[in-house]
């Protein structure tokens, strides 16, 4: 169940709106209202980025700080939903999560494989959608690098 003071993103993360101040809540409302008007994906992409960027620039936040804000995450999430609904974007699956993890935490796939104990060849097949990893194999590999699997409610696009 979604509480009125929270926003659930495509990953099932619950973003707390109650922590936002009045102006930030208005910003979120503006992002949501525009998204509900069925905009073109490219238009919305330009719209939300400029809105959120200008808003936090005026407050003196760095760009790095801005991408961690709730309105940034909501703007990005709404934009993703518009792209998915338009059939131009694919919802992420566990392989995308895995690729993102490798991208942000490791210099090479080999380094990731050494840390997790997964075979490079197997990883290559999995990321190319030719094979799947068994859930227990994936869980064991992730545990070795301090990560775990979660089951979350499916979010409607």
């Amino acid at each position, binding site marked *: 169940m979604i509480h009125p003071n929270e926003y659930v993103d*495509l990953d099932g993360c619950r973003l707390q709106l109650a922590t936002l101040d009045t102006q930030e809540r208005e910003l979120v409302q503006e992002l949501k209202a525009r998204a509900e008007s069925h905009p*073109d994906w*490219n*238009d919305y*992409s*330009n719209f939300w*980025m*400029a809105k959120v*960027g200008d808003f936090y620039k005026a407050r003196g936040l760095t*760009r*790095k700080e*801005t*991408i961690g804000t709730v309105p940034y995450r909501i703007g*990005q999430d709404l*934009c*993703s939903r518009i*792209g*998915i609904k338009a*059939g*131009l*974007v*694919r*919802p*992420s*699956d566990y392989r*995308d*999560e895995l*690729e*993102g993890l*490798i*991208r942000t935490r*490791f*210099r*090479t*796939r080999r380094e*990731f494989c050494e840390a997790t104990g997964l075979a490079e060849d197997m990883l290559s097949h999995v990321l*190319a*959608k030719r094979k799947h990893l068994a859930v227990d194999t994936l869980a064991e590999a992730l545990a070795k690098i301090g990560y775990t699997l979660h089951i979350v409610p499916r979010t409607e696009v």
Partner: protein
Amino acid sequence: MSKNPLLECAFFIPIRRDANLSDGDLHSEKAWAWLKRELFLHFEGATVAPGFYEGFYKDPDTGEQVTDRSRMYIVAAPSSKVDELRTLLAKACIVFKQKCIYLSVSGDVEFSRGKQDDPP
């Protein structure tokens, strides 16, 4: 005239992965979010041009004609930041599973390439 004029840099990101290099599938929302975040962090932003751009080219590996449909991004950057954009696009080749990405810097066209085996 400004001491450090901005250059118009435009690049194309096909909306699908390269079918020869990968599976020809649509990109995930995470891939597009990554690009948005990187452009914001390094260039403060970018403009996505309206609509989509249809194109075709000869795949250097297969010799076959390939058609694609792309989004065009426009970034205004000083010349000192153009290399940073090239580096970002080399990473984008990996994230978006492309052999190369078309980049135009003030009308001069080049292709950014990434090494597919490693994460950006």
